[in-house]
């Protein structure tokens, strides 16, 4: 067993896993689904995420640090579990790879318009493969380094303060055309990734403030999201936001430095680090599940298969609109899984406890 992961890193991992390309469209999504002052919805969703994490915490406490798989497999037969595993694998791997693909397609909007996306995606897969085979401990280390490489980005929002005006925010709360349930799914979709805390349980030091780090990391992500949304609302105004596909992109485009203009080009590529960690963590979870099904397979082979399979699948999603439609359904499934799995686990743990007593 390698060293255990320490809470600092969990904090950074949570931030890196949660934040991703979703942030680029998030301000529009909040405006579109929640109407005026939609940025407040980020708070609501953040609260829901915290509730979800609380469920994980209960599992952690009751399970006494046992892994999810141990808990499940000790009282449910494998034949029942495998279909469930397959479904989880399907949802998580697809969400992960499509998020990566979404990033690539967005990137193509800015530059390399005529390069086939599968070539650009290939680069991404290479990074995924090489990081994934190094194991979770090194993934966490990489996420820490990537965190530092991107930690300065939220401060860019200070640049927009000069153009920020409160009256553009309007005093109206959630007015205009809204569809909140869809909106919550979308916003939660961009906050997904926190479920990794459930699978990390066996890898962290017992009695360390692990879940405190998880919650803090998640709150930090929400804070960054919130700031970006508020700035977007105050910078563009509500109506303009509705028309902007990727408001953060336009915010970045506004930044001009004396030696570099059109900074968005570079800033957007910096997001590769975040997207990489987001995708890699979902693949890691998938790898855990696959390892349970194919107990004898070599991990490198499994990883190669995951990367290859998702690479092929992602080639079918070739337009941004198609992709966001797919992602919407996947988010919905993913979120329900996030609630379902810990609830099932809690029930199982209760049963196990009762069995122990008798």
């Amino acid at each position, binding site marked *: 067993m390698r060293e255990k992961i320490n809470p600092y890193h969990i904090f950074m991992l949570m931030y890196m896993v949660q934040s991703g390309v979703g942030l680029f469209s998030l301000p529009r999504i909040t405006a579109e689904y929640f109407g005026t002052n939609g940025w407040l919805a980020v708070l609501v969703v953040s609260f829901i995420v915290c509730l979800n994490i609380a469920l994980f915490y209960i599992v952690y406490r009751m399970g006494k640090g046992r892994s999810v798989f141990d808990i499940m497999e000790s009282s449910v037969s494998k034949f029942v579990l495998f279909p469930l595993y397959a479904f989880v694998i399907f949802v998580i791997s697809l969400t992960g790879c499509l998020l990566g693909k979404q990033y690539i397609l967005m990137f193509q909007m800015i530059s390399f318009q005529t390069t086939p996306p599968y070539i650009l995606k290939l680069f991404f897969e290479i990074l995924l493969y090489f990081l994934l085979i190094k194991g979770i401990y090194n993934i966490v280390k990489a996420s820490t380094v990537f965190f530092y490489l991107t930690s300065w980005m939220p401060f860019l929002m200070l640049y927009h303060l000069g153009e920020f005006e409160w*009256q553009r925010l309007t005093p109206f709360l959630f007015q205009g055309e809204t569809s909140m349930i869809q909106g919550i799914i979308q916003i939660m979709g961009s906050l997904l990734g926190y479920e990794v805390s459930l699978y990390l349980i066996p890898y962290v030091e017992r009695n360390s403030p692990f879940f405190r780090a998880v919650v803090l990391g998640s709150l930090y992500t929400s804070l960054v999201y919130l700031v970006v949304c508020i700035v977007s609302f105050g910078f563009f105004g509500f109506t303009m936001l509705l028309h902007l596909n990727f408001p953060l992109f336009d915010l970045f485009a506004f930044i001009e430095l004396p030696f570099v203009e059109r900074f968005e080009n570079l800033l957007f590529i910096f997001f590769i680090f975040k997207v990489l960690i987001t995708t890699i963590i979902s693949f890691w979870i998938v790898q855990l599940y696959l390892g349970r099904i194919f107990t004898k397979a070599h991990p490198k082979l499994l990883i190669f298969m995951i990367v290859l399979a998702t690479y092929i699948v992602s080639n079918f999603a070739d337009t941004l609109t198609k992709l966001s439609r797919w992602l919407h359904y996947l988010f919905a499934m993913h979120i329900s899984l996030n609630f379902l799995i810990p609830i099932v686990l809690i029930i199982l743990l209760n049963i196990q406890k009762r069995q122990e007593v008798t």
Partner: protein
Amino acid sequence: MCGVLRFACLFMALLLLCGCSADKRQLENLGFTNSISYDLYTEEDNEERKLLVTTSVPNIGTKTGKQREVLTAVTQSSKQAWVKLSRQTGRILVNGQLRNALFGMELAAEGLMPHIDTLVRDPSIGQRVNIIIVDGKASELLKKDFPDEPPTGQYIYDLLEKEEKHNSIPDIAIYSFARDLMDEGIDPVAPIIKMNKDHLMIDGIALFGDDRYRTKVSFKDALIFAGLRGDLNQGELNVDFKDANEIESVTLSSVIGRRMVKVKRVQNGEIKVLLGLHFKGSVLEYIGSRELNDTKDIAFLEGQLSDYLQDEAMKLIRHMQTNQVDSLGIGQHVRNSMRYKEWNSLDWKEAYAGADIECSVKVTIINTGKFQ
């Protein structure tokens, strides 16, 4: 680790062979459009209205002797024009370095929305492209070379940059124009430039109602207009007034202006808006009979200045109201004082024309220079 190495070698070899050559934008092969202009174009015997698009591309490293290349095309839409324009040059025409978008006055009166839309949509175009209205034909202005000045595109850019710093024209880039266009509570504005014999000149500020050009603010009122539109950090005010039948003149320099907007609702649903302006500045030039070291006289001057500015401001406001252009963004404040339903049911354009907008100006003279 060995795998990484082996892979790296392989990968490098592959890279040297292939690469995304189609997307290469090598600097020396490019024609950077620096400025683009749009005009209405009607042929004499034809009623059909077309678009005249002109762009200016700086020549770099070519031996033609000319500093820039001017291309024109007449088409239905601006994107079509792009194809036509690039057919005329040996370089790859790119718009990532676009700085100015000029619109002819005639076209502006027709509505700018479709053109703004194209400019905003294209990710290769920056957010800071200047939107400029040309008094006359924009393409003629762009085609013209000004011998004493840098190439025309650069000249326009420098001119605007400088004037924006001095607040004599608002800092209008494409994002702020589009934003104000979309926002219901404010109407966009844009600087107007004019060509005289061998120079360009700022002519004033164009006021838009939605995306159509409606009216303008003349250059001498520009600073007051800027003060009405928002806070000021710099500027210079020239004021002439009558004192005991003699015309006196004061220049207020380094003007700092603060704006306050108060919206009051009178009982019968009428809207009353109070604009409070506070200008601070130093008097560095005064032609008149008063002594500038006397507190009383300074108070008198302050009074004269604020009276004058208040009159001018009120004139401007009435002018905007009659033309139904809410360039000051009063709508935003009115909206923020209402409930959502109320605002939604209100026809702001209509209400704006009839609204009771008052303005009070206060002037503080900070100092009078180093000479008593």
